């Protein structure tokens, strides 16, 4: 397979700030995690929306990987899925 890259696109990617990239990666990983749990449990986006009293379009926005989640939403999703989607490491002093 021959790999083709576009110089202008690569130039734009190189200019992405570390902060934007870190924020994006976090949103993307959360979306991946929700998607994986849905698949593992055989749940649809519609079912998750129903459990949370949300519209299906809202769940679909979360799964794009570009949603800015609030801790409130994350807690609601975890409860609806019955599994944690974020684990914060404990620190002892």
């Amino acid at each position, binding site marked *: *397979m021959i790999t083709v890259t576009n110089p202008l*696109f690569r130039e734009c*990617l190189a200019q992405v700030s570390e902060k*934007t990239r870190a924020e994006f990666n976090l949103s993307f990983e959360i979306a991946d995690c929700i998607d994986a749990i849905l698949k593992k449990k055989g749940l649809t986006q519609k079912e998750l929306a129903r459990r949370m009293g949300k519209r299906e379009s809202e769940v679909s926005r979360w799964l794009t990987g570009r949603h800015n989640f609030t801790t409130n939403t994350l807690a609601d999703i975890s409860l609806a899925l019955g599994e944690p989607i974020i684990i914060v490491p404990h620190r002892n002093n």
Partner: protein
Amino acid sequence: MKKAQLKTIEQHDNVSLYSICFDGNNISEYEDFLMKFKDNSTLNQDFQRIIIALEKIIDRGALERFFRIEGKMNDRLSALSLDSRSLRLYCLRISDQILILGNGGVKTTRTYEEDETLSGYVMDLQQFDELLKQAQKNGSITIEKNMIVGIENKVFEL
């Protein structure tokens, strides 16, 4: 009638990205989008998020969930956008492995149809989608995994 060719933007194991290049233009529609917004300080963060999304797509595939469905039931029009933000990039999601990138801009109206520029970009993609389906049907192009074969000298008339 506009003449256009398909240009390969990026080609990788998982995904290939293409864009439409109109006759007489030096750059493709996607490259025009990049040129328009890469130095825009107001929309910089939104622009950067859209292009990182494309980087992830290259890595993971053009999965349906990464896109916002736009257009009509029988076309493959999608958009890369951010929640409640106005910048969007229109594209045709042909499969998990093939994505055709169009142009995009700032949506300030309720629907893209109300914006002459954006609806122009969308219509170009919708027409292109139809031509692509016809070309596939008559065998002048074929889709093989992550590649559209037969586009090198193929001219589409929109």
